[in-house]
């Protein structure tokens, strides 16, 4: 299907699409002239308010796709729309704006800025968005309450456990009311119980605020709460399945 056809097709449909990837390719040129096709033509629609999990072995292009739909990498060919904005046409300032306002990132290793307190970490994106410090503080406190760290606002990262740090990261991700939260293996460094709490928190945010959550994960608990699961292999979509059609048990996945 050509791009114009695809766009027309989308207008006819009434679904609320947050991210649309159209035939996305990403090639890396090696030193010796080899071309690595990290992504080899992926088309994908992500609906508003859904919980999409991306799976795939390392080297499958999973991270590349993840970066692509997160506005932190741009495709060699094809188009990516994030909340109706064509990512390929943005300059570096506009990309920064997009990342600031539309997307919240959660990382495997938390990436909380050390030295800054929990509150400062949460307010930083708001400051980048141009909010006044007092506004940001007020909203930051409310967010910390939401993620269950109301009493730890002035603690610094080294005084917090991994789970608490990841909560700060979740708070930071939702600071500017993003449309999408991108979570890169958010539970990989946490124990099972803490991981579950983070998953619950993400799910709560999805229910209450309608935030779309996209995560790269191998955690069965995360797959369990997903709306859809996408398998990537060799830069292509291997399989895209709705959660309700899958039978997930801890330790294995089966198609019914």
């Amino acid at each position, binding site marked *: 299907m050509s791009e114009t056809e695809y766009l027309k097709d989308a207008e006819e449909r009434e679904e609320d699409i947050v991210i649309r990837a159209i035939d996305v390719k990403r090639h890396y040129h090696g030193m010796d002239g080899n071309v690595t096709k990290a992504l080899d033509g992926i088309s994908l629609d992500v609906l508003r308010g859904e919980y999409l999990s991306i799976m795939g072995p390392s080297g499958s292009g999973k991270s590349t796709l993840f970066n692509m739909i997160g506005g932190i990498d741009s495709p060699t060919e094809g188009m990516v729309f994030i909340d109706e904005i064509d990512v390929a046409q943005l300059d570096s300032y506009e990309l920064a704006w997009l990342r600031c306002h539309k997307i919240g990132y959660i*990382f495997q290793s938390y990436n909380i800025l050390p030295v800054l307190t929990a509150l400062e970490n949460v307010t930083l994106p708001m400051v980048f968005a141009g909010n006044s410090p007092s506004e940001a503080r007020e909203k930051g406190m409310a967010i910390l309450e939401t993620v269950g760290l109301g009493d730890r606002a002035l603690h610094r990262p080294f005084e917090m456990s991994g789970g608490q740090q990841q909560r700060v990261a979740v708070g930071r991700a939702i600071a500017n009311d993003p449309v999408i939260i991108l979570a890169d293996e958010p539970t990989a460094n946490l124990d099972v119980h803490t991981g579950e709490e983070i998953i619950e928190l993400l799910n709560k945010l999805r229910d209450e605020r309608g935030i779309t959550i996209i995560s790269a994960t191998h955690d069965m608990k995360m797959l369990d709460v997903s709306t859809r699961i996408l398998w990537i292999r060799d830069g292509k979509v291997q399989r895209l399945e709705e959660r309700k059609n899958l039978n997930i048990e801890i330790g294995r996945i089966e198609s019914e």
Partner: protein
Amino acid sequence: MMPKQDVIPEQTAVSWPIVMSVSMAGMRRRFSRAMITMVGVVLAIAFLCYMLLNETFVQSMIAEGSDDLNILLQNANVDILSGGGTDQMTVLLIGLTLLTSLVGIINAMLMAVTERVREIGTLKCLGATDQFVVRTYFVESAVQGVCGSALGMVLGLVVSMVVNLKTYGWFALKTFPAGGVVVALLVSLGAGAVLSVVAAIIPAYMAARKQPVEALRVEE
């Protein structure tokens, strides 16, 4: 679905206080290294300040024209006829010292960039612009430079006073060239500030070029 690019507003700068707090946080975290960098600046500027002060002192004493003082000056190997001007060798030495200190700051700042790649990536994911990143590095370097220069200035002044009092006794106070001293101090401070800002150019540029993808790197 038409692209709606126009929702993105014009570029606005993040206010300086925020830039300050982020770069201060960076320095506090690596306080000992910031200190070592600063010591380099302190020594270079102290040397520059000492040389400048000595020259003003000597010139002011030559202008005094007292015989007793001239004997002291001759004992101190000062060429009275040429006006006590600093020779080329000394100028070269000062230049080299400043250059060494410049390279030192550049090195330290580059390390700070490589060490903080993930942090820069994270900041960019949160919506930091290139301009913001550049500014934080300039502020960091400038703070180190200005603090270092101020300390170096004081150190240079103290050493120069001690040496001059020891060599020329009360003449050093009698002919105290207040105006010249102030100029020498200001020149030292300015040199330090310029040095640190120049040193930050390359590291800040490198930091701004780092991509947000770096934030996703997992540390081994």
